[in-house]
């Protein structure tokens, strides 16, 4: 295993972590299931590509603008979420994903199916990042995102999200403005996914419409759900599993996707709360098995 291969896999893992964490804010915290998250990812990547390649902007202003624009688009795409909920929202987000990808695919300005080539690697003080330095750079961003999400989960907003997720009508009735928190969640999720898109695009130095299609959205949701919806560590573990597993399974060649699909199915079957959620359940008695265990410990302790 060469160093470059290792670095590439870790960069993808970290970018997926950012994506999973951002979807987790939307789905895990605020309860708005989205199957179109790759659209935000793509908007971040394409904005940065257009700004740097077509308009000749430097990397750093492009980073700032692409993140802001995808946050803004996230806000706009949050608008349908004000009208529709639950399964309708899932389908609306699938639709958004399809429409965004078709725009990339069919509008000449975005290069059509050939995408946009030749994105610059970011440079600092006239020194362009090498692959190794880029991996460190992505690591820094991942840590920033992790700390941001950690900070967010201790704020008043998190309580608003929780209320929204548990029962929208009840939340409204005690004065939690559901449109406000929905838009808020969509904006943050769009912002972070846009950051991931930017990092991804400048690592690959090319963007294609296919990189942001619906299956990618499914992948992101899978990471969140396998790891544990609504937890901080869960989505990160999920991102590692979903990114690294296909690499590890390379020896199985033809059966790779089959095994991958089955792992998703059986994780849902036996660990519906995800890996972290199930472990928590076992520890604190949230699941039937965990309840039994806690009872047993109580019994032993009382004698």
């Amino acid at each position, binding site marked *: 295993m060469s160093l470059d291969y290792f670095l590439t896999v870790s960069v993808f893992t970290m970018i997926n972590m950012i994506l999973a964490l951002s979807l987790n804010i939307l*789905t895990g915290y605020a309860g708005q*299931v989205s199957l179109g998250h790759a659209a935000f990812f793509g908007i971040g990547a394409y904005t940065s590509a257009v700004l740097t390649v077509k308009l000749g902007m430097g990397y750093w202003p492009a980073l700032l603008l692409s993140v802001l624009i995808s946050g803004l688009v996230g806000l706009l795409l949050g*608008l*349908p979420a004000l*009208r*529709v909920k*639950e*399964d*309708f929202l*899932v*389908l*609306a987000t*699938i*639709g*958004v994903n*399809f*429409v965004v990808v*078709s*725009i990339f*695919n*069919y*509008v000449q300005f975005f290069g059509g199916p050939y995408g946009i080539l030749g994105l610059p690697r970011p440079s600092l003080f006239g020194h362009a990042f090498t692959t190794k330095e880029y991996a460190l750079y992505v690591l820094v961003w991942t840590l920033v995102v992790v700390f941001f999400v950690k900070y967010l989960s201790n704020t008043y907003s998190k309580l608003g999200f929780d209320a929204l997720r548990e029962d929208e009508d009840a939340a409204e009735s005690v004065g939690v403005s559901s449109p406000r928190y929905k838009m808020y969640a969509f904006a943050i999720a769009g912002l972070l996914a846009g950051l991931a898109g930017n990092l991804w695009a400048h690592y690959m130095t090319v963007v294609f419409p296919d990189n942001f299609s*619906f299956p990618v959205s*499914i992948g992101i*949701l*899978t990471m969140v*759900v*396998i790891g544990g*919806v609504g937890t901080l560590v869960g989505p990160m573990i999920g991102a590692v599993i979903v990114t690294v597993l296909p690499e590890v399974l390379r020896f199985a060649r*033809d*059966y790779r*996707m*089959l095994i*991958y*699909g*089955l*792992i*998703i*199915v059986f994780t*849902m*079957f036996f660990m*519906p709360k995800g890996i972290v959620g199930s472990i928590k359940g076992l520890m604190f008695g949230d699941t039937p098995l965990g309840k039994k265990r806690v009872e047993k410990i109580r019994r032993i302790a009382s004698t």
Partner: protein
Amino acid sequence: MQNIVNALVLGSSYVMIAVGLTLVYGILKILHIAHAGIYAFGALFAVYLCELGLPLVFAIVLSLIFSSLLGAFIYKGFYKHVLDRGRIVPLVMSVGLFATLEDLYRLIWGPYKRPFDAYIGLPDVMSPTLYLSSKGVLMLIVTAVVIVLLYLLLMRTKLGKSLRACSNDLSLAGAFGINTDRSVTFAFLIGSSLAALGGILVGLYDNTVYPTMGSVPSYKAFVVVVLGGFGSIKGAVLASYILALVETFVVYYFGFLLPRDAIAFLTMILLLMFKPEGLFGKVRR
């Protein structure tokens, strides 16, 4: 005129897959993406049987039986155990199932496109202004028959009554002594065989079948289900044809920039903005 006929054929192919999905959604309220896996299975298995040398009708019937059993197996083996665990769990499981099924087909039957060549004893419709192949005629006839049969089944039989009761309120239906588990299984059996029939007809019409043929219909069918107002069979049938007409005419007259799939989704998003419960849906509280 040609456009209308094309749209009718297209709409018929949507009807087949969307009706089954509506049955399942109406009762269980889960997004059953693996439904399109059954659609592909029906077509692939029928072609496989034909290649083994079975006559077409026999192959189709056998394929429908196996597809409906596969659908029932998906319910009994998987969904049934995760129904009480929120909405995301069955959804993700369904996605995993769909990926697994598609890969399984690729392993069994190879990744290639196969021709589905079969002679159908129907005439082509040909006039100076209109062309409809015999396979298109077959599609229209079969869809019409299926719609009528389904209507009779739902409105006139005891099974239909129990299905309608279940889709109204599953737990209440159970409380009134309806064997809900059996009704749901029947919904899966019927829905899956319809999806497979749709796959076979589309395979015949396009003269190709391939393992990933279910990908686009899987999302498309959901557009139809949404447009029709979740859970309404009548709505699903009408929405199929409306969507097909919109797609065909927008592509034909406006030479629109986006492909027809994107138009379908755009239509859906716009509709949801103004009428969040779908065209024929009731507001459920």
